[in-house]
């Protein structure tokens, strides 16, 4: 599996993203030809796209500082989309974790969308590929929920649940509580993962929407490694739990 460096992988990933966005004008142009025919039906659900850099931040705590990103983007229509999601982190200038997901999404209920596709983890260690299937949507009380199951090389299984909520302090000052859980079916010593619930994190970010597209934020995150994963961390001389201050920017186009 491992055949090149994380940096090269990063380059592939950047190229894939760039390719998608270079293809956009062509897709949009094809769409526009239709719109020129001015049939009302054709205008109803035009091809659309979203880029949400939900988190692009520096975290600083007792265990040092790190940078983290979480980007999701889609191209598609009201009920059918192609998603690209990526997240990762860098510590002291080196990429510690990079994940890239390519998913097909189909809204199947009032508030829910089914996603299915693939995920690649480029760091740490050798590249690991997973098949992904999950749901995303809005639960009652407007709680945003995303749950994805992953089936990886060598029969590995993982589950990730993310949830957040938006609390309007004012119409521009928005408090976002967020929670994330990761669970693994089996132990993976190479990556320092134990079986079962591996880590839980909560975050509280307060952003100011200068405009809808641009929102700097500050916040606090608390993360805790659990079970076998915590044991691996302790063995490596690291604190399994950490609380950090964050500062970053959220961009949405």
């Amino acid at each position, binding site marked *: 599996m491992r055949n090149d460096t994380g940096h090269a992988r990063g380059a592939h990933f950047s190229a894939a993203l760039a390719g998608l966005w270079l293809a956009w004008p062509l897709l949009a142009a094809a769409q526009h030809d239709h719109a020129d*025919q*001015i049939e009302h039906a054709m205008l109803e659900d035009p091809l659309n796209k979203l880029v949400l850099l939900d988190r692009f931040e520096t975290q600083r705590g007792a265990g040092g500082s790190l940078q983290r990103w979480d980007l999701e983007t889609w191209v598609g229509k009201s*009920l059918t989309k192609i998603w690209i999601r990526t997240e990762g982190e860098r510590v002291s200038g080196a990429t510690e974790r990079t994940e890239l997901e390519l998913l097909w999404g189909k809204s199947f*209920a009032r508030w829910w969308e089914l996603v299915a596709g693939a995920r690649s983890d480029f760091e740490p260690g050798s590249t690991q590929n997973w098949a992904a299937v999950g749901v995303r949507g809005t639960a009652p009380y407007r709680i945003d929920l995303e749950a994805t199951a992953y089936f990886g090389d060598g029969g590995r299984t993982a589950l990730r649940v993310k949830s957040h909520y938006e609390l*309007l302090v*004012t*119409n521009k000052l928005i408090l976002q509580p967020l929670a994330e859980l990761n669970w693994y079916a089996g132990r993976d010593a190479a990556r320092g993962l134990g079986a079962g619930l591996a880590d839980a994190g909560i975050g509280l970010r307060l952003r100011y929407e200068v405009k809808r597209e641009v929102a700097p934020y500050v916040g606090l995150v608390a993360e805790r490694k659990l079970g076998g994963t915590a044991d691996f961390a302790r063995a490596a001389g690291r604190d399994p739990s950490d609380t950090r201050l964050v500062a970053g920017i959220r961009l*949405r186009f």
Partner: protein
Amino acid sequence: MFDHTITRSGSRRFSRRTFMEGLGVGAAAGLATPQLNAASAGSSEVATLRGAEIALRIGAAPVSFTGKPRIATVVNDSLPAPLLRWREGDTVTVRVTNELAEPTSIHWHGLLLPANMDGVPGLSFHGIAPGETFAYRFPLRQSGTYWYHAHSAFQEQTGLYGAIVIEPREPAPFAYDREHVVLLSDWTDRDPMALYLKLKRQADYFNYQQRTMGDYVRDARRDGLAATRAAQGEWARMRMRPSDLADVSGATYTYLTNGRSPAGNWTGVFVRGERVLLRLINGSSMSTFDVRIPGLEMTVVAVDGQYVHPVTVDEMRMAAAETYDVLVTPAGADAFTIFAQSLDRSGYARGTLAVRDGLEAPTPKLDRIVYLGMADMGHNMTGMPSMPAMPGMVMPGDPPTHPPSERRNPGVDMQTAAPTPRLDDPGVGLRDNGRRVLTYANLRSLFADPDGREPERTLELHLTGHMERFMWSFDGVPYEKAEPISLRYGERVRFKLVNDTMMAHPIHLHGMWSDLEDEAGQFLVRKHTVNIPPGTQRSYRVTADALGRWAYHCHLLYHMNGMFREVRVNA
């Protein structure tokens, strides 16, 4: 160009006026700024064309309503498009030349005409290609205040709308000394397609009036924590926002009166003692206006071009595409503000009635925003429709039957439980405001039901959508995937509309009248556009007396591509 007034006796008196501001500005000013309305304050008669032969050029021209230069869609270099003054009974020919780089069209809103003259691309004709001239020709079978607008892409948003006044053959049943057209609209500096895509990405993008933690605390102090939790919890469980009053707000819109921004202060002049007819038209793309003239009461004499029994009010809610003719008798001051605040209280259009240019009356403050309540959604189970049960008869007040196509439909986010017509409800934000507010229940056509027959059948249609995905449809099925509604020529049909969304939708049937009924199925008023607020079901009768293919849709521009049907009247 002539300005004219009509004397109390009904005879016409013309005075010669020039309209440099309105027409031919491109050449005169060097900068082709149609109407120049944003920049300069004061009186500006709307450019007027009259006669049976009219030529219109649809083109693009730079405008600036906010200080930023933008390209608008203009007609004969004017925004709004010229006022067309016609006479009932005449046959008019309008040659429309497309000077745009894309296809265009003009629809004559509310006019009864042959289907191939109705101006809807794909149904009436193929649209007007760039460089092409299309000749519309139709007899004028009615009188009153109407308007015209593009039916292509989002050209209505960028300025292609204008007023039509058809003078009656018989004298009007009311007298007036002077008249003004007051055409309200909304302008955005954004590209309408980009705006639409933005709404589909984030439906609350333009809503900066959502309930905050502060509102919650205030409510809890006032109503108690339990009551506040219960009320807000209900919204939250539904995943909806009580602040969803308008999709597009003053955050991007500049609201215009006859093409002028509030700062531009369009002014209509009157002479003391005169009775003035105001022809109010909501020519906006997405805005509902609550209109009043502080210090003056308004007597409504016609609605959607058709005479009604006069009713005197202080304020009225105008849904998109509706027209209201009102009489006012300015007295006691030299200037009065025509104040048209948008339903979501995010902005307003204004103009002035004054004895001369340059005067201003105080502009009222925007009313406080009133959020939707559960009763607005037809979810108040205590208010079940209580119609006298008449076995075997379908009554307009009967509870709705949700169509199967709404079920398990990702494009439908709610269904109303117990909608009622609520014709006498002034609507959210206007209830108990200390002013006399017009409701549909106040409207009575001056004539009896012109058809007289009971409807042979009832077509029940549900207005559906998904707020967050910004999808709109009838019965959960967008136009693209829908079969036409077939009517048999000559038949009388009841359209019963049930609003399964949380927004009001002004529904417009082309080519035929919509005769609004009360709860008991009695004829109330003849209209071309019927507003259906959330939580209501309303019904009207249609006589299928016009052969051909007709458009039937929500008149909110960013809803209409989905919430649209073809109505086919077959021989």
